[in-house]
Structure formats: C-alpha cells, structure tokens
C-alpha cells in the first residue's frame, strides 16, 4: 500500500512539474483517504452494525437490493450499502433514525396490504417486492431509502459502502484522482487547435 502511495506521488510530481516533496505535503490527504478506503473495503471480516437491528438491516437491505439489484453483476447488497446506511444513521443522518424506522413500518404495511400473510418485506418474493415498492415510489419513505442506497453505492468507500468500489466500477468511474489526456474516445485523435476559417458572422 505504501508502495502504491509512493508511486502515485511520483506520477503526480512528474505530471505536475512540482517537487515530490511538495506533493507529499499537499496531495496525500486524498490518496491516503482513497487508500484507507481501499484497505477498509478489503478487510476480511464485515463490520458490525452500530445502529440498526438485524431485522431492520435485513428489511433495508432487501429494499436496497431492489433499488440497485444484483443481476449479472454485483448490486447494492454486494457493495455493502447496508453498512453505509448504518454508519450514516450513527453520524450525519442520525436525525433520520425515526424516519427510517417509520419507513420500514410503512413498507411492511404495504407488503401486508398487497400480499396478505406476508409480514416482512424481505420474506416476499422478488416480484412481490417490486410491486410493493412500485406502489410506494412517490412516498417520502421510498425517497429516503433510495437516497441512502444510491449514496451507499456511489459515495467514497471510506463512508462504509461502495465496497471494492463496486458502484464506481459499475458506472465506469476510475478513482485514481489524477489523469493525463487523452481522457476519452473523442479526444484521442484530436489534432490540436486550429483556428476556424472565416470571420464572425
């Protein structure tokens, strides 16, 4: 890991034309955070839940897994979105604990209403779960779960979700935080700036 950090510092200093020492004092916060996130994401044992009960976590994870499902590739579940949400509810979103508990109750209520006999969202079939969320997609409760799921999937892994950068890999975001041109397909063969002929209209 230290090697990776040094290598990136070297690349940065050659790219920016500033000394490696300068980069070492000014740039490492980002790289250190990225490396820390990377390390955390690779840790073998899953973190423990701090706020959510196992039952709540099971329900929320089932909801999150419908918002960003696991198909031929990993989704919210594999990205550890639930750990992001648990940490959020302990920290910056602690005021939303009540709303989350309420939201779970509403989802369970709707599940029972549409599918009598099914008392837990996580116990419903995938088709049933989709029907429940479809019926709720314009409610604040659904909005809350969607917000936290998307954040947990795509936010910096240091926040507890987006494990192994699953979310970033899905969308094609490279987390190197330092690039050189060409950046994409269309600027690869750009011949350089040429003035356009003719006067202004």
């Amino acid at each position, binding site marked *: 890991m230290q090697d990776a950090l040094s290598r990136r510092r070297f690349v*940065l200093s050659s*790219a*920016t*034309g*500033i000394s490696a020492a*300068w*980069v070492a*004092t*000014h*740039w*490492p*916060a*980002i790289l250190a*955070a990225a490396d820390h996130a990377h390390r955390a994401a690779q840790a073998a044992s899953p973190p423990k839940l701090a706020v959510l009960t196992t039952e709540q976590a099971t329900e929320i994870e089932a909801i999150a897994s*419908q*918002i*960003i*499902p696991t*198909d031929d590739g990993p*989704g919210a579940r594999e990205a550890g979105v639930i750990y992001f949400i648990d940490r959020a509810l302990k920290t*910056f979103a602690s005021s939303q604990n009540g709303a989350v508990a309420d939201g779970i109750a509403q989802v369970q209520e709707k599940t029972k209403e549409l599918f009598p006999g099914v008392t837990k969202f996580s116990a419903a079939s995938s088709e049933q779960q*989709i029907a429940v*969320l479809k019926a709720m*997609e314009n409610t604040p409760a659904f909005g809350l779960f*969607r*917000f936290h799921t*998307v*954040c947990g*999937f*795509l*936010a*910096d892994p*240091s*926040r507890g979700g987006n494990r192994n950068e699953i*979310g*970033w890999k*899905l*969308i*094609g*975001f*490279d987390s190197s*935080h*330092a*690039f*050189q*041109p*060409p*950046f*994409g*397909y*269309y*600027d690869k063969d*750009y011949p350089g*700036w040429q*003035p*356009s002929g*003719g*006067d*202004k*209209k």
Partner: protein
Amino acid sequence: MRQAGPKYKSSDEVDFVIVGSGAAGGVLAKELSTNGFRVVVLEQGPYLTPEQFDHDELHVSFQNALTNDPQKQPNTFRKTPQDKASRQPVVNYGCCVGGSSVHFTANYWRFHEIDFIERSKRGPIPGTGFADWPITYADLEPYYTKVDWEVGVSGLAGASPFDPPRSKPYAYPPLPVKSSGVIFERAARKLGWHPFPAPMAILSKAADGRGACVHCGFCVEFGCEVGAKSSSLASVIPLAERTGRCEIRPNSYAFRVEANDRGRVTGVTYFDAQKQQQFQKAKAVVLSANGAETPRLLLLSASKLFPNGLANSSGVVGKYLMPNGNHEVFGVFEHPLNDYKSVVVSRVLHDFYELDPKLGFYGGGGLDARFDTTPVSFGLGSFFGGLPKDIPTWGRAYKSALREYFTCTMGIFCHGTSLPVESNSFSLDPGLKDAWGLPALRVTYTDHPDDLKNITYLKDRALEIFEAAGARKTWHAPIQETQVFYHLLGTCRMGNDPKTSVINADHRAHDVPNLFLCDGSSLVTSGRGQPTMTIQALAYRAADRITALAKHGDLDA
C-alpha cells in the same frame, strides 16, 4: 508555503477592514497590503488549507464543507413583494477563506465591450433599471490582464473572433481539450460557429509554488489540493499575508458596520467563533461579502443617521438582483467520453453573445461544453445532471442506465443575461432569524420574461449542436423560473447618480466617504454569466482607486 500574517488587536485602528476573503476581498487584501496599508480581513467561514480538502461528495456537496449552511443561516423566498416569503434554501455561496472562488467552476471569460454600454446601444427596456456602467471595458482591460497574470488564467488569446481587445496573451496555455470539447467544437463548426478553448482560472503549468492541474475532475463544488485552481486562497491571499501587513481573521461573522455622528464608518462589529461580539476599528471599511451579504450587512447597519440602512439614501441597496439565466442540456454518445476527468469546461462559444433585437426580446449568452456531475449526484439526479427523466429511478433499468450513461454523457451549459428589475432583491426577513439572532436573508424574485425567452433560445442552440454532433439522445429539464441563486449580482450597483446607485465608479459609497463596496453587488448589468473574472478585475481597479484616494488624504477623518 503559507506564511501567516500579523495579528492585530481589535482596538488597533487598522487602515482597512475588509469583510469577505473571496474573489474580490482576496484581491483587495493583497493590493492594499502590498501598497503599505494595514489590513484585517473578516471571513465568516473557517481557514481551510488544501490538506483539509477532500473528494468525499457527502462531505462537500451534502454537508456544506465549503459553503453556507442553510440550517444556520436560513433564507426565505417570495416571488413578489406582495407575497409572504417562505423558508427555503435559495442562496448558495462559499463560506471559508477564499469564498466561492474555492469551489467555483473557474470559467473565466471577460465581459465584452458591449456589456458596459448596452443601454446606450440598445435603448431603454421598460420595467427595468437597464443602465450603462460608469466605466468601460477599456477602463477595466489592464485589470483583466492583471487577473490573467496574477490570479492565473489559462487560455488562448485570439481564438475567439468575438473576444474584446486584450493587451497581453493569457498567462498559461489552454488546458487540454476533453471529449466533450472535441464533440462540441466539431459540431459547432459544422454549423458555422466559432468555438474556442475555454479560458479557465486553473493553471495548466506549475508556477509560483502552485501545482499544475492534475485533471482529478473534482473542480466545481470542491477545493483544489494542488493549488492549480486560482481561488483567492491559492493565489492572492498568500501574497497578502506575505506582506506582513494583512491579517486574515476566519470564523468572524460581520453583522454591523459602525458609523459615527459625522456619517463616517469607524469599523465593523462581528461575532467571533465563540459567538462573542467583537469590534475591529479601522480608518476605512471595504465590503466584499458577496452580492447577498454585502447588502444585508448595509441593511443590518441601519442607524439614526442612516434609517434605511447604511449607504442607502437611494433606496436601491439589495435591489436589481441578477442571477444570470442558466440551463443545461445533456447528450449521450456511443463511446466513453470519461468527461468526469479534468476541469469542467474545455470549449466555449460566443456566437450568441449579442442577440438580434429583431428576435423580440433582449438577451445574449455563452455556451460551453462540460461535465459537472460527480458519481453520487449523477446517481441521485440533481439540479445539474443525472439520467434522462424517462429512465426509471430504481431497479434493473436504472442500474443498466447508470452503467451506460455516466461515462458517455456530456452537457452543454447555457449562460445568459438577467435584466435588472428593481423588485428583484435581497432584504431582511421580518420574521425569521439566523443562528446568531440576526434577521435572515429574504429573496424576492420573478424572472423577467425576456430572460426566460433568452435562455430558451440558447437551449435550442445547444440542442442544434447535439444534433449536429450525432448524439444518441438528448434531454434537459423544462425551462424554469430561477429558484437557486449562485451568481449574486447587481445589488449595490455602481453609477454616477447617487439617486439611482449605491457606489460611484471608485466603488465608494455615495453616502459614506470612507466606505467601499466591491463584489458581485457592484455590477450594473449581468454580463452573460461567468462574473468572477469581472468581479476580480473590478477589485484590482477598486484597489488602485482606493489607494489613490488614501494617499491623497481623501479618506482621513
């Protein structure tokens, strides 16, 4: 390396107190301290250094790491003076040393000659305060050049046939083109238009202890860790501190400019980090607190001698608010652009800077090719971007679209004029207080119909470019009334007539001889977006004028 400035006692009478350390305040601090004056800069936000910046979207975009906190400083909004204002976050600005220049996009085109004389050229527009500036482009040109070279702007002189005359080329070569820029350039040329490399306040080469851009892609909303983005924090504030005469005092929330019974200001009262009241004495005061907080501070400083607010005998303090019309159109292409990398904008177009009056409305604008959406904002679908509205917001189709769109999408941003309308304003809310017990900022705003027609016209040009470029699909939000205000312009306008303006061409308050105002509030017209370059040129010029007055003894009591 940063070298901290001196620490003055608040009882020391310094030469200048400057409120605000952003684009204008930073320049004034550097210029006045370099010219030998003792300066205290009061900044309401913290003094963050580059190693405290991060790329964590939740911290920066959702927890206001660098911007004002609407919980602590709430706003209210109403459409007309007849309506009751309701609480909602409407004004967004930087809240740290460097102000909004820390998190800005860094688009840095100059205003054109027409912007300063458009009222004369075009005639009056009923229902507005459309006016000429008391200065011209030629007056400001040397100061634009100073911004290019001292603050640091990258670009290519002569690349746009519409550019106003310049006395020197840009200080740094243009930044590399992005895929969005190539697509935009090729399509616009097909249409016979004249795209050019974007002038950006971001260093393409290392200089003066600042790094060159590393193309990390975290520009707008974020602070720059390598000092490449030319915030006042990275550029002029270190120069101010190095003079040994300028103290930057963070966590200092100015709320009253004090005046004596002779109508001269004596200093500024502020809350320190512990919410204790402090008073900094000064021979003269400069407000560069931004287009919202400068008028608010004047209104908060009402007194027996100045019952309508300080420097407000005209009654126009806070009025003629202009936010710049703005709208973004998106397009998705077949191959990855990876436009999340590097600076936001690499190509700009000024063919529509001045629209033909025969179109039936006043307006004009610039278009740029860009991508300004980070992963979480893209996934959530924010004000600035995300997936097309016809794509589901969750489930398998949503997930596939995230995969398909993020790297292949770009935007064309339309920047347009706002007309100065008197009732569009910042004022003090009579019912709501901020966390310090001060009246909250109230916004009254209804878009002038021409501004909406103008932005619609520009949006249609953006769609033409996407069509010429062969975009697989395009989308945009409906044209809407302005609801969030980023550009805070015109609210203490400059002019020769004390009855219709707040400051004169020297940025001196008509009513108070030792009070100066310089920031977005000074603008007479809105330009076509991208006001910061002009705000900084004004600040350099104001510093020259203020220095001349002070050296001449004009500021002595």
